[in-house]
């Protein structure tokens, strides 16, 4: 039995969480810059243009979630396998290499920005491909670090106990790492470029990341409310079947308009329409377990187990947010009949904000609280926990609603009425629907940032908060 207090793996997990939280802050800050540029177009013009702000905004998002995911695995590994993680020294080296690389990449993005049109720019500056802009040298570095991480996980699972949760994570992480390779080459055919690009973006986000989150929430239910492992793991397998069953071919909804054959319309429409189903299952699972465990423990005359209310708050909210953001907001515009008008408008942006937040960010924030709890028997919500949760959630939901309204205006004016030309685009952008909505989006972005500050202060102080010293 590994001593949790001394566990190097948990320490490493917390190091990953720390960097993740910093990058989360960077994501919001650069999002604010980009959001401001929509309202005041001269803001930082030709100093830090929208393309740079937006690149840092979305890359910080992807990288902070990856950091939080890797951290979560290092954090839960000793609990699940009952042994200390194998090769932890190498794992720590990987952490420092990755963090150094991320720092250099971000500095190059901000300071160099663009290069001449040759392969050297793609190797050294960025690849200019949304979400996976990291220059090629960093791509290779990421692959090496991920291989170290995989080795840690596999060797540990082989040495210790292998639970259902660990089995799912092992398969999932292998797929997650392997898919990254599909985005690491150059082609002069934009259709082929985008085809493989979606293998990274879609198959990560809508398949492997979703399965990852399902596994982490399963682990947390056992930890926090004492849910029955057998039931949790059975649900987990059901969710894996449904998530991969819909998510893998759901990639078709990105293949409607990039030059690919028309049969993707039917495949994309059918499977992406099924994608919300497992998200409902995940939600039912969380609520079912909570109710059942409470009932069982109360029936036995005891008190229901609940040893980390802040984490549980974020986990339950994530089950909600995943369904609403990924499920409902995704379903809004997933059918090709609809998508031909909404594709590439602020509708997509609205869906993206709520889906990433609800499905992944909320679950990973919950993991931050698990990390903060450490060996403490119980962690209760403080005022700041509630403020942080409220401001961040209201902020992101507010941004989503604003962007949905902007998207609505854009679809009606630019696409339906004026036919999607350059001029049509700017008529749509200058409509009152769009302009006011973008103002609200910026305001809601500021609310989110205030929430982020509350969250960070809470994470730093919650262990010493009065409320957590009483029990």
């Amino acid at each position, binding site marked *: 039995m590994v001593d949790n207090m001394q566990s190097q793996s948990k320490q490493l997990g917390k190091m990953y969480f720390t960097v993740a939280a910093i990058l989360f802050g960077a994501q919001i800050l650069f999002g604010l810059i980009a959001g401001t540029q929509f309202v005041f177009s001269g803001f930082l013009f030709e100093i830090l243009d929208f393309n*740079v702000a937006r690149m840092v905004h979305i890359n910080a998002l992807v990288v902070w979630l990856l950091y939080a995911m890797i951290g979560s695995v290092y954090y839960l590994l000793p609990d699940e396998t009952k042994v200390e993680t194998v090769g932890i020294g190498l794992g720590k080296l990987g952490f420092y290499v990755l963090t150094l690389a991320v720092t250099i990449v971000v500095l190059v993005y901000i300071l160099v920005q663009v290069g001449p*049109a040759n392969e050297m720019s793609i190797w050294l500056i960025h690849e200019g491909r949304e979400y996976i*802009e990291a220059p090629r040298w960093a791509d290779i570095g990421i692959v090496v670090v991920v291989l170290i991480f995989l080795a840690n996980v596999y060797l540990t699972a082989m040495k210790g106990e292998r639970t*259902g949760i660990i089995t799912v994570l092992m398969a999932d992480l292998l797929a997650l790492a392997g898919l990254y390779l599909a985005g690491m080459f150059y082609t*002069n055919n934009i259709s082929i470029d985008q085809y493989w690009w979606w293998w990274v973006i879609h198959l990560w986000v809508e398949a492997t990341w979703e399965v990852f989150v399902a596994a982490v929430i399963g682990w947390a239910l056992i930890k926090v409310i004492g849910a029955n492992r057998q039931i949790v793991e059975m649900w987990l397998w*059901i969710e894996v*079947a449904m998530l991969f069953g819909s998510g893998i071919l759901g990639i078709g909804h990105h293949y409607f308009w990039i030059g*690919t054959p028309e049969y993707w319309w039917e495949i994309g429409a059918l499977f992406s329409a099924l994608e919300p189903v497992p998200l409902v299952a995940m939600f039912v699972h969380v609520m079912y377990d909570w109710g059942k465990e409470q009932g069982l423990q109360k029936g036995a005359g005891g008190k229901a187990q609940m040893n980390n209310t802040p984490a549980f708050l974020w986990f339950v909210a994530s089950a909600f947010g995943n369904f609403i953001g990924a499920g409902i907001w995704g379903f809004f515009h997933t059918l090709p009949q609809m998508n031909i008008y909404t594709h590439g408008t602020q509708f997509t942006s609205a869906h993206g904000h709520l889906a990433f937040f609800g499905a992944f960010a909320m679950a990973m924030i919950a993991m931050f609280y698990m990390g903060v709890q450490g060996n403490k028997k119980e962690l209760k919500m403080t005022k700041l926990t509630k403020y942080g949760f409220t401001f961040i959630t209201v902020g992101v939901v507010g941004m989503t609603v604003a962007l949905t309204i902007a998207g609505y205006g854009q679809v009606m004016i630019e696409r339906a009425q004026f036919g999607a*030309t350059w001029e049509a685009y700017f008529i749509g952008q200058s409509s009152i629907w769009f302009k006011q909505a973008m103002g609200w989006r910026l305001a809601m972005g500021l609310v989110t940032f205030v929430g982020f500050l509350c969250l960070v202060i809470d994470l730093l102080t919650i262990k010493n908060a009065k409320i957590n010293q009483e029990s």
Partner: protein
Amino acid sequence: MSKKVSVWADGRFWQRSAAWVTGVAAMLLIWLTFDTMGQIQMGTKAELDQGITKRVPSPTVINHKITYEMNDKRGHETPVIGEKEKFFGRDDYSEEEAMALLNLGKLASQTKNCMNCHTLLGNGAYYAPDLTKAWLDPNWESYMLRMGKETKEEAIAEFLQHPSDNPSNERMMPNLGVTAEEAKGLVAFLKHMSSIDTNGFPRNFGKIEGGIHGR
């Protein structure tokens, strides 16, 4: 004595189901990928000259006039590749020359980070207009007049090199240090992209007077 459990509450049943469903979905995706890859490979000059339509035609499409028209059989708009048309004064680019230009343009589109303001084939950021059919955009005609250029390609190239001197809106494109050669490549890239069969996206492009068939 073993406890009797319903198959629906049996973890192993669901584990096997998960493995099978994932495997079948992955195999289907791989099979469809082979089919799609065949269909979206770039065509050749010979095919183009014989009038064989490809979803992604040969880069020598820059030697031709491209329009985007309603296809009654398919029920949506498709690119139509027409007679010869001069591109920077020539209409006899060889396969290699056209490919080199297209490649330079694609590289420039990445290294200049176009996708983090514009959308290409509808993917990217939403801060600037979609570039999918930008080559066919009627606005270039006013730019030809404004910048005193004889042809559309020269007007686009000029704009790409000095975007902030030629704004169309208060939201301007920044100067990205595009050289004359890179601009030429980018225009070839845009012209080629407008010839890709995108299943009718963007719908109703340029039909400002309204009506699906209207102009």
